[in-house]
């Protein structure tokens, strides 16, 4: 049904389509605004289809290789190269496929939403170019198997995201937020490049599988790991490098904020990929695991306590994003802390990792949904101050329903998807250390308290003066939210289906270092 050359080249098309589409969109925009909107939507639809197709291939046929510039797309180590994979190689295993799925799903919903929500702005020709560039960079980050290539995509995503955060230049504050984000990401990127240099100097390789095969855990490797963890933890917004998150998330247009969540998660993916696949059990997994657990716990507590007093709806949600990132770090950190002990790994380590990874998926959906509802409210009311909203429930019924779905999911209330992943985390982390599990539950309760407050002040009560004429959000915005809300509900009602088919393969792909190496280097 699908021609062979598309199947073979699908991983390359996954990056090529959004990048080419991005740079053609200003030209198409010369024709008319509608032509540009159609073009952007078409490019995103095509990217999403390729993304699902690639993910389907990975889940059915195992790890997918794509070697750029080689005569044979799956020939990672040519016979004349002396056993070194010299080309840029995309390596998509189940974990990458999961991240691709998340990125294209949220990307599609967000583009659909943004076609209306941002239509009133100026400078749209650049906006969609950067937006598609950012989506392409995220897809590149999660599919590459080459460290330097990862760095390049990391920088593209930083530059594109910073440009989009500062998009509302007429407000100096947006530029301030964009600059903060850019500075943190750039310094993080420089650290990352230092780490690449250190690893390359020792092992003469940039390919992750090749490095994983040779890595020794020398003092220099430890230094490289510290630099990488610092850089990527800053990029994913974990405490104590979280200070850019509320600024950037609250100042960006809402559609961008939903995508920024996915960009942060791509950094989180990089962190896990490097800890598990590159270092594997050679690293001191108990210590590193605990470092990640402590980062997670701190993010959870500080994120939620900072969220409670906020008065700006998006700033509040941004602090919750920090707090939810903590759950993912906690789940996967517990898995890392017992990585070398097969018995413990089987009894609760894998469950904890599945919980953490499932939470990545769920968080992208419900947090994206919440930011989109916040955007719809701001779009209609014209302010992001919680004290000046009120009584919107009568006017914006659908937005209110979507907000309730997102808020209950983030607080971990059944039957929404946040409950499914949080339950996996509570259960397995309790076996590891009961205290951590209790902290996670308390944070969840505080999250619920905070969202009850938001719900009350935004939707309940009589309409405030000036809000009588507020109407429901436009239809395309509602469709974008519906997609995400449907996924939140479906993955909350049938979590086993998602866990068995998407999450468990991803968790196994992360722990199976030997499988990753042999997929690239052959038999070994």
């Amino acid at each position, binding site marked *: 049904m699908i021609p062979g050359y598309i199947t073979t080249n699908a991983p390359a098309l996954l990056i090529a389509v959004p990048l080419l589409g991005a740079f053609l969109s200003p030209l198409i925009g010369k024709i008319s605004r509608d032509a540009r909107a159609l073009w952007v939507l078409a490019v995103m639809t095509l990217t999403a289809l390729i993304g699902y197709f690639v993910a389907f291939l990975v889940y059915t046929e195992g790890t997918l290789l794509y070697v750029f510039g080689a005569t044979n797309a799956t020939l990672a180590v040519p016979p004349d190269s002396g056993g070194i994979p010299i080309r840029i190689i995309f390596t998509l295993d189940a974990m990458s496929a999961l991240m691709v799925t998340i990125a294209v799903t949220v990307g599609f919903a967000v583009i659909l939403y943004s076609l209306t929500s941002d239509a009133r702005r100026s400078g749209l020709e650049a906006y969609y170019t950067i937006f598609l560039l950012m989506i392409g960079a995220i897809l590149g980050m999660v599919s590459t198997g080459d460290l330097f290539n990862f760095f390049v995509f990391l920088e593209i995503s930083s*530059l594109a995201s910073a440009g989009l955060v500062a998009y509302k230049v007429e407000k*100096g504050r947006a530029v301030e937020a964009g600059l*903060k984000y*850019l500075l943190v990401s750039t310094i993080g990127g420089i650290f990352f490049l230092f780490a*690449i*240099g250190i690893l390359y100097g020792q092992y003469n390789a940039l390919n992750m599988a090749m490095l994983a095969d040779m890595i020794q855990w020398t003092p220099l490797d430890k230094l490289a790991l510290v630099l990488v963890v610092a850089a990527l933890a800053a990029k994913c917004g974990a405490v104590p490098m979280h200070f850019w998150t509320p600024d950037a998330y609250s100042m960006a247009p809402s559609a961008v904020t939903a995508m920024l969540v996915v960009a942060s998660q791509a950094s989180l993916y990089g962190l896990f990929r490097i800890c598990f696949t590159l270092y594997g059990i050679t690293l001191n997994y108990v210590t590193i695991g605990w470092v990640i657990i402590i980062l997670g716990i701190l993010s959870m507590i500080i994120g939620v306590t900072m969220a409670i007093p906020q008065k700006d709806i998006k700033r509040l949600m941004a602090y919750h994003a920090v707090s939810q990132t903590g759950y993912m770090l906690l789940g996967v950190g517990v898995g890392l802390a017992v990585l070398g002990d097969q018995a413990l790994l089987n009894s609760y380590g894998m469950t904890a990792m599945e919980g953490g990874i499932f939470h990545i998926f769920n968080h992208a959906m419900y947090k994206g949904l919440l930011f989109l509802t916040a955007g719809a409210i701001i779009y209609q009311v014209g302010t992001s101050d919680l004290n000046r909203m009120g009584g919107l429930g009568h006017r914006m019924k659908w937005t209110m329903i979507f907000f309730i779905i997102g808020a209950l999911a983030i607080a971990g209330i059944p039957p929404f998807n946040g409950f499914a992943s949080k339950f996996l985390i509570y259960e397995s982390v309790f076996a590891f250390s009961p205290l951590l599990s209790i902290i996670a539950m308390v944070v969840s309760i505080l999250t619920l308290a905070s969202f009850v407050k938001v719900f009350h002040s935004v939707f309940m009560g009589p309409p405030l003066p000036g809000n009588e004429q507020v109407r429901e959000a436009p239809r395309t915005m509602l469709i974008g939210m519906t997609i995400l809300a449907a996924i939140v509900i479906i993955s909350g009602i049938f979590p086993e289906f998602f866990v068995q088919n998407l999450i468990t393969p991803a968790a196994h792909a992360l722990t199976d270092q030997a499988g990753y190496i042999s997929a690239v280097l052959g038999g070994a």
Partner: protein
Amino acid sequence: MFWNLPYIAVVLLSVIGLATILLKRNLIKIFLGVSILTSAVNLFIIALGYREGGIAPIYTYAVSENMVMATPQALTLTSIVIGVATIALMLSFAVIIYKTYGTVNVDEIKELKE
């Protein structure tokens, strides 16, 4: 000792760059620090790629065993390009910040703090 000179320079440049970023209050000076830090990394990678007696891989008739793989140079070129893009974006942000706030001192740009 002599062969370690580039690495000593890398350490000095990184310290100068980081200190500039952390201690200076003027945005333009912070960007200078970022630029110095980028140069330190570029120098680091280039220094790693040096092989004594190696031949640049542009001569067709050289002994192929002595040719040097050009990966570090390629990495550095890419990194320079990324650095230029980053600094350009940062400076354009600084222009807008100066227009809005009338200052580039980070102590006076704090509308987002609360």
